[in-house]
């Protein structure tokens, strides 16, 4: 058998493309792979794709800009899921595309299982598709688009001329609109309801005249719709697949890999970093040294008022649970903190709720500690309430003075404030919090831009506290080791 590369040299260019089993780099994945797939291929194709999608998802969580996300995704794709355009004659494009095809289908199986997984998978896949679409070879993309039946008709030049002024007026929301450079496509107006609702197209006889630059939004919408539908169908068909004992464990593994991404890593589990047992009376010290601003605010409000309102108790209580406070220590902690409250009132009103949050009462759910996203999007604190994110829910001057009084002992000064406030003003609360982490951990050698390690930003209060405690522990270990060395050398 000839290899693809050997044949290439003998044929004119057009022919070379048509020889590809996968003629286009872009794929709507509307047909499943039908060749035999080995179980190793099954797993590696999926894992490599997951590495790309997980990076996309973590970019969303970390509020990366579209350009940053694009860069990160392209780097990751180059490493794990290269996908060259058809003009890359020296590359085995078919095998790249086959891997892309298989990986997508395996992940569909892994992520169709719950609505949440489906939503996240579609979001990440759609971003990947958009990036590939934006960076695709222009000719190849054009051929891909015309290979699909989008049921649109290019508006002939004579017709464009006829409606010239209307097309220009309808496109006035584009900054650099130039009628001469724009091609238009006609579709039924019901295909672009969003553009119709905002009057962003010219409409005649029920047809919307969509400029080429808006064409991509039709394609993305189409891809999203068909993927959503396909995932629901797969979910319905999955029980039959569950009989295949070779595949199920792999799928379980894959979906957990996605779940354990940046956003949820810190939500559950009560493993304490140091392996030591946390006790109620250690909390004050840990709060001073390792808490992010939101938890400091809750802790200090609790100390000052000897009480916290419901939402505050919930946010702080679950944080303490994940920090490693056992149920018995938690009850001790809250009992002592609510010092103005009578024993029987505490037992009646609060003990149950604490046990409940540890999954020991009621429906015995393992409640997760709230992530930054959840804290930011939950109901804002009202009067007398202390929950929420200070970077978002404090006024600017209150935030500035709170930061100084809270963290000046750890090295934060007024000259750091402008930097932090710029992030707050542009609503990048994560960035502000991460910056504070960097400053207050400067004594451990953390530098600006390092975040909580390897450039990662704060996405969870527990992640903040745990990383902070790790730095401390690392230094203690070094010191211990150093002192041991001293002891040893003296003997």
């Amino acid at each position, binding site marked *: 058998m000839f290899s693809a590369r050997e044949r290439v040299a003998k044929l004119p260019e057009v022919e070379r493309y048509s020889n590809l089993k996968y003629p286009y780099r872009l794929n709507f994945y509307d047909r499943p792979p039908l060749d035999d797939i080995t179980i190793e291929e099954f797993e590696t194709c999926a894992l490599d794709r997951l590495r790309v999608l997980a990076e996309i998802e973590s970019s969303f969580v970390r509020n990366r800009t579209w350009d940053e996300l694009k860069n990160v995704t392209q780097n990751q794709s180059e490493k794990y899921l290269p996908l060259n355009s058809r003009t890359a004659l020296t590359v085995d494009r078919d095998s790249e595309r086959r891997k892309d095809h298989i990986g997508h289908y395996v992940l569909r199986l892994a992520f169709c299982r719950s609505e949440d997984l489906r939503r996240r998978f579609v979001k990440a896949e759609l971003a990947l598709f958009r990036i590939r679409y934006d960076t695709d070879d222009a000719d190849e993309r054009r051929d891909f688009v015309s290979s699909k039946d989008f049921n649109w008709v290019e508006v002939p030049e004579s017709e464009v001329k006829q409606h010239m*002024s209307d097309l220009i*007026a309808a496109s*006035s929301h584009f900054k650099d609109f130039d009628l001469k450079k724009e091609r238009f496509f006609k579709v039924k107006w019901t295909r672009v*309801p*969003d553009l*119709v*609702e905002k*009057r962003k197209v010219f409409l005649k*006889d*029920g047809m919307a005249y969509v400029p080429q630059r808006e064409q991509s939004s039709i394609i993305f919408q189409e891809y999203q719709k068909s993927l959503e539908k396909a995932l629901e169908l797969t979910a319905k068909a999955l029980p039959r697949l569950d009989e295949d004992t070779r595949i199920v464990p792999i799928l379980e593994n894959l979906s957990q890999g996605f779940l354990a991404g940046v956003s949820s890593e810190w939500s559950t589990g009560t493993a304490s970093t140091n392996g030591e047992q946390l006790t109620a009376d250690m909390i004050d010290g840990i709060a001073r040294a390792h808490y992010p601003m939101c938890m400091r605010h809750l802790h200090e409000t609790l100390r000052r008022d000897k009480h916290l309102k419901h939402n505050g108790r919930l946010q702080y209580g679950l944080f303490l649970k994940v920090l490693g406070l056992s149920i018995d220590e938690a009850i001790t902690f809250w009992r002592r903190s609510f010092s103005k409250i009578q024993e029987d009132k505490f037992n009646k009103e609060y003990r149950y709720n604490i046990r409940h949050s540890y999954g020991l009462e009621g429906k015995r759910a393992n409640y997760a500690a709230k992530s930054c996203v959840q804290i930011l999007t939950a109901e804002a604190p009202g009067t007398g309430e202390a929950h929420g994110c200070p970077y978002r829910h404090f006024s600017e001057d209150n935030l500035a003075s709170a930061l100084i009084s809270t963290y000046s002992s750890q090295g934060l000064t007024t000259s750091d404030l402008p930097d932090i406030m710029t992030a707050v003003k542009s609503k990048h609360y994560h960035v502000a919090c991460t910056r504070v982490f960097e400053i207050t951990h400067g004594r451990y050698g953390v530098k600006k831009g390092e975040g909580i390690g390897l450039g990662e930003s704060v996405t969870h209060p527990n992640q903040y506290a745990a990383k902070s405690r790790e730095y401390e522990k690392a230094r203690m270990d070094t010191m211990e080791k150093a002192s041991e060395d001293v002891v040893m050398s003296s003997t």
Partner: protein
Amino acid sequence: MESVSDDQMLAFYRRLYPFKSIFHWLNQGHAPTRLFTHRELAFTLKGDVYLRYNSFNTTEEFKKQVCLLNPTRFEIGPVYSARPKDKKTVRPAAFKPTLRELVFDIDMTDYDEIRTCCSDAAICSRCWVFISLAVRVLDKAIRTQFGYKHLLWVYSGRRGIHLWISDKEAIELTDDERKAMVGWLTVIAGGKEMHKKVNVRQPNKPLPPSIQAALEPLAETFMDLILEDQDCFESKEGWQELLHLIPDKEIQSDLRERWTKHENSSSEKWADLRAKIKELPKVSSRRTLMSYALEDIVLQYTYPRLDAEVSKHRNHLLKAPFCIHPKTGRVCVPVDPHDIDNFDPEKVPTVGQLLNELDQAGSDEHHADWEKTSLKPYIEMLDRHAAGLMEETRLAVRSGMDMSW
């Protein structure tokens, strides 16, 4: 105003109400389809008793029930995935609205902040001009922009007008698509607290083409209706509202001073405003901005005001054509949009008048009762409209199109 007695109402249903025409219009064919059999009809009985989820297999069944209940009015709802009368016995998931004429409702009360002749429920031939203008503009926009052909305009019996669109595509629109279309057609937005209610253009850009197209007939009527007849800027509140819509602070304060000093008519004020603009340099951003502001003012005072909620959801119920308005006794007759300017709501036949005409006509075996009354032209109008729809169905069936509703 006459109020309608139970006997009059019953006689009207028995002898005059065009059940067959209504059936043809809703069903779009002779043999009953889901368009009729799965259609919700809701009856309002005396004492505000409301009976929902009725459905019928045939016109005869429908008429029999109406004559039995003698409702003060009835409303037409969507076609459901199951027969509405079986609602209690089917799974909720199997009972969903699927098809429905696309409907629009224009009500005179939405013009209360503009019209000076009447308010609330009252309506006169002078304020009807707002409605007839709205009909002309919307009828044209929907036909040319959306390409729909089967539009039925129906007088609501008192102070407004309904539009029913029966094209196949229109009937099949999802709620989201209906919402998008309402967005496209809505120009006036914002409540009492908002002075400027027209915000449809990109900053410093001309109007979107669809609205530009409506502007010409509106500007024409603006002179007669707003400046002359309604004299909207004569009163202090009136011209102060106008000043709020002028973006050029200098012109605004000049005019405020002038109009505070001496009273004048709306036309004179409009002339003052235009004279001020003429003083501005020909090619200047101030002048462009002011000419755009004038266009926006014309739109704010004359562009059709839609009751958006009625149109957005398939399961919204709307009063059936040819019902009797209980307060006025007038029949909700279809209206020819091309002759809308000659339509006078006060000349619409009342139920009492129609029954009188029947009494005087005497017995004539060769004609149906309705043909002997002034209801005739209106029923013929609906029949012509329904015939157009049935012809479309016939052609579609012949060309093998899927018409299995």
